[in-house]
């Protein structure tokens, strides 16, 4: 994955989409029956921006993503894609926490889902990009969890989305595989230029990947924080400080266990602190 030729020659990569979508959420409100899940959500995302949404469990992160994907209706407000309100954008793709590969289709046919047979070379090239070209003819049941998520990523990319929605795509993976996937997702995002909206429980993941971190609490956006760190990001002091800041906001408290003090030189925190799960 790391010595992939495309990584060093990003310019030569196939430019699959001209650029990302500009996304604008205006005073969105959503409730299920009596339960108000989201209210007065205002968010503006620039083309090609990478935005991470964090928040406690049940705060409505997935719901927000599903609204943007057009999988669910909302009660008030508007979602504008490139300035236009639409029910469902054809150039938006979503990636779920479980890979949702069709078990009865081989890997390559999963990637081809919804595309014509003439998309075969494209499907092969995205499989190659996620490093699974040699597994094209395997059944999904034969893949590991991380490999399945990579296929799901390839399937999303094969549609050349201009907006990629990721709902905790790495939630079920181990810490090491996560770090590999971060590198992969960041590289593909830079090459393809799509706008990315990532829902995650993992503050480290948000700080590592996002241009901006949005915190949802009790149905509202309570934090909208740019991440000014240069890419590729190293886990240095600034990284840790940002992480701590976001985590404090999420937990809404000033007293919490203080593992950060333990790392005198947190260039690479000890294994126990590699990630911060909320």
């Amino acid at each position: 994955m790391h010595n992939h030729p495309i990584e060093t020659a990003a310019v030569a990569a196939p430019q699959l989409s001209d650029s990302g979508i500009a996304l604008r959420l205006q005073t969105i409100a959503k409730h299920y029956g009596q339960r108000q899940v989201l209210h007065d959500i205002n968010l503006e995302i620039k083309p090609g921006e990478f935005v991470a949404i964090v928040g406690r469990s049940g705060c409505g992160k997935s719901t927000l993503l599903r609204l943007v994907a057009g999988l669910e209706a909302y009660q008030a407000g508007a979602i504008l894609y490139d300035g236009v309100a639409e029910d469902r954008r054809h150039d938006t793709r979503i990636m779920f926490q479980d890979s949702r590969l069709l078990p009865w289709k081989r890997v390559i046919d999963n990637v081809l889902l919804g595309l014509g047979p003439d998309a075969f070379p494209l499907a092969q090239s995205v499989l190659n990009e996620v490093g699974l070209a040699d597994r094209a003819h395997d059944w999904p049941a034969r893949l590991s969890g991380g490999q399945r998520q990579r296929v799901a990523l390839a399937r999303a990319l094969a549609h050349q989305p201009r907006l990629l929605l990721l709902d905790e795509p790495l939630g079920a993976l181990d810490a090491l595989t996560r770090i590999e996937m971060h590198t992969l997702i960041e590289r593909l995002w830079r090459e393809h230029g799509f706008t990315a909206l990532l829902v995650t429980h993992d503050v480290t993941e948000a700080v590592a990947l996002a241009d901006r971190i949005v915190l949802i609490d009790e149905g509202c956006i309570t934090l909208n924080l740019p991440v000014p760190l240069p890419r590729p990001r190293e886990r240095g002091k600034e990284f840790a400080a940002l992480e701590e800041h976001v985590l404090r906001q999420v937990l809404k408290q000033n007293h919490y266990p203080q593992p950060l003090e333990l790392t005198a030189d947190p260039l690479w925190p000890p294994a126990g602190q590699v990630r911060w799960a909320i």
Partner: protein
Amino acid sequence: MASPSLPRWQRLTPWLPPLALLILWQVLAQTGFISVRILPSPASVAQAAWELTLSGELPYHVLVSTQRALLGFAIGGGAGLLLGLATGSFRQLETLLDTSLQMLRNIPPLALIPLVILWFGIDEGAKLFIVSIGVFFPLYLNTFHGIRSVDPGLIEMAKSYGLSRWALYREVILPGALSSILVGVRFSLGLMWVLLIVAETISANAGIGYMTMNAREFLRTDVVLVGILVYALLGKLADLIARALERFWLRWHPAYQS
């Protein structure tokens, strides 16, 4: 599951009990311990089978029975499959039909025999009707259940990937329901022979059931046994075919990967 790495003699172990039984049976019959009227020896059963085959009688009856079985399976199973697909896919049809079908399901098909004889006489129609009704329900129920239990996450995913209604059905819903449908097929194939045996024994002028009933009148116990064994073989054959279909269509499934 038997692993292919077992030594040859161990793979033969399941065949030892029937073989032993066969030998015991032959010995008992030959020594006159049981009367040949009650149970003729295996050798004479084999002899009878051979003669019936040579005379063309056995192949003829097997052919007639197989045709009936398959036709009944095609009619009843086909209807069950189509109706299951329909009620599984459309809520309105389910509310309209499902209660009635669940009610009918509780009637054993064999309980209909007197009525069927009144309706169809002892014609072909009677036997086809019994078999069709019997195989209808396993296929209907399993198809319905299969469609309803397709992972909604996969359906949502496919919709969001721009699949049209028909493509969604072909690529997601049908393959997702297939393992359940095949369970229905296996059940139906088992029932198919049972029902046909009963139907042919009651009234027929050809077929394995007719052959055995006829032999009973002439006290040809060996021929009766030939008929019973042929039924067993045909049942086993149907099951093997169903399993082969499962292995092929569900080859993606971890349970079917060697």
